[in-house]
């Protein structure tokens, strides 16, 4: 296990380098130019000097190397400094990745600003989805072909076929426009200080959470059901039943424990999507999270911000792939790392 972990961690490095290269290369081909937003009155030679000062005229490998240093050395150092309030080296002179849109603001700071909103809305949706989907999947599998199973399967197929941007608009139409239960737009400035503002926070989160949660729950319920159905005909289940255990005991202690192994893996694999996949939902309800930040950056041609965000999303995918594999190994001792 330990050896496997070390080997997997080592393979992460070339993967991340390759991904960073792809992302950097794609964006470096961009026709965008940070000086294009400057006033027209600036003379061409000065414009040229600004370009030079920003390092835009360097050859591709040099730019890539510098970006890598900024991203893998400077940014983590600054993060550690901020987190523990300590000084490592000369923090003032250290070059950080800064935004082109909001000139001079380090992109990491902009990203950290947005994390809480995304985590709250999307994380909550994911939790809701897990809490709903797993029991539904389990019950439909135990009572296969019952009314409950057929209705559940049908609804989950609908849930994963209707795009979130349509369910979102339908919910706005029903609950904001017609019934006026929930606000149409998510207000990020709302401070939760007392009971009333907490209720308000819940009210405005209800629709985005429901939209995302329904979609995720549909996928998870389908997966849980089929995983349960894989295990129900197994010999060990028949043995447990033959020993005279009650059905509830067999289901919970034997079938469920084995069926949840792939489900847990799927949940771990889905966590990166918490950060990147909510782009559309954030857009519908105007949640000021990471997805909205990315869309804004794309529209403003803010290349450093787009690069950093995309690369962070990619890092999350790689890391959670590893975590999923490790969890799988811990939960299922039959998996041998070779």
């Amino acid at each position, binding site marked *: 296990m330990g050896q496997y972990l070390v080997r997997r961690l080592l393979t992460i490095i070339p993967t991340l380098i390759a991904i960073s290269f792809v992302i950097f290369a794609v964006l470096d081909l961009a026709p965008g130019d940070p000086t294009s937003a400057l006033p027209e009155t600036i003379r061409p030679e000065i414009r040229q000097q600004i370009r030079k000062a920003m390092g835009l005229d360097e050859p591709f490998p040099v730019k890539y190397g510098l970006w890598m240093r900024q991203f893998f050395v400077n940014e983590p150092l600054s993060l550690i400094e901020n987190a523990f309030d300590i000084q490592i080296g000369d923090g003032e002179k250290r070059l950080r990745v800064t935004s082109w849109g909001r000139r001079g603001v380090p992109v990491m700071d902009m990203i950290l600003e947005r994390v809480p909103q995304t985590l709250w809305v999307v994380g909550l949706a994911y939790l809701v989805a897990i809490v709903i989907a797993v029991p539904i999947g389990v019950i439909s599998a135990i009572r296969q072909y019952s009314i409950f199973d057929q209705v559940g399967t049908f609804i989950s197929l609908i849930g994963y076929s209707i*795009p979130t941007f349509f369910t979102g608009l339908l919910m706005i139409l029903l609950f904001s426009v017609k019934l006026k239960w929930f606000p149409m737009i998510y207000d990020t400035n709302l401070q939760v200080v007392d009971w009333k503002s907490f209720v308000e926070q819940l009210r405005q989160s209800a629709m985005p959470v429901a939209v995302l949660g329904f979609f995720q729950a549909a996928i998870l319920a389908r997966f849980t059901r089929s995983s349960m159905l894989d295990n129900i005909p197994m010999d060990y289940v028949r043995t447990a039943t033959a020993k005279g255990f009650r059905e509830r005991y067999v289901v919970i202690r034997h079938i469920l424990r084995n069926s949840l192994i792939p489900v847990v893996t799927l949940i771990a694999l889905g966590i990166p999507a918490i950060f990147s996949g909510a782009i*559309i939902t954030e857009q519908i309800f105007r949640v000021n999270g990471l997805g909205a930040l990315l869309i804004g950056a794309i529209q403003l041609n803010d290349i450093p911000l787009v690069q950093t965000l*995309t690369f962070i999303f990619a890092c999350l995918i790689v890391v959670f792939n590893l975590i999923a594999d490790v969890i799988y190994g811990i939960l299922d001792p039959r998996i041998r790392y070779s």
Partner: protein
Amino acid sequence: MAVGTETASAENLASELPQRQHRTLWGDVWLRFRRHNLANVGVVVLVLLVIGVLAGPLVYTVDPEYSFIVDDIDSINQPPSVKYPMGTDDLGRDTLARNLFGGRISLAVGVVAMFVSITFGALVGVLSGFFRRLDNPLMRFTDLMLALPSLPLLLVIIMLFRDSLKAMLGPELGIFLLVVIVIGILGWMPTARVVRGSVLSIKEKEFVEAAVSVGTREPVILWQHILPNVLSPIIVSATLGVAAAILTESALSFLGLGFPSNVPTWGRLLFENKDFITQNPWLVIWPGMFISLTILSINFIGDGLRDALDPRQRR
């Protein structure tokens, strides 16, 4: 069991055989598919939608860009009526005509992008499953592609290359090719994995061994023996691939990064009209309903095909 009865039943069988209808592989698939109720509903709905968007504009000849404000100042944001079957939008344009026209593009994007991703995915899958030397590099490449965050990257690529392709091929064709190729290139990985898995297991089967032992050359084995047997996973993922591509295109358009505003795809219609949801909810209900119906029916068909093509279910 006595020898006599066995020959008797064999004779019985022989006499029954000519009367029984000849069954083919695809005939069996069709029979099993017909038994899948939801899949049949899916086929009916999808065929209706396809006929609707293909023949609709020929029958319903209202120009999707024509603004009825010219004739009647009150013809903006109308609910469905006899004159405007699905109502009109904020510029007085006919919603039905726009949806019919938009459906053509949405469906075309879905089908063409599916072809791109399936071709690429099947190629990578077959090559890495069949040739051991290629397996490791190709699968590492697939893993790498899977680790790329697809929606953000899709948005970024479209943003970057939109203007240059627009200049080269014109706004409609340029964006169409860009959207289709990018969706295809970022969507082939699951197909490649599934196909590789099937090729690996079929390669070990006795009939392939037999073909090798009589001296069949590798290309022939690949073409004649392996490919027909991996067709079913390819067909299933092609079906689901159309739905995924339509969904992705709608999402792109919904974020305002798909087709330009004079090309109304279903996603684009949702994007344009979502701000008028309070004045005229029909504007978002129609395109959203068409997207959902298309995806739902394709997913039903995909489920049905999977069951029909799975030989383990054969009776």
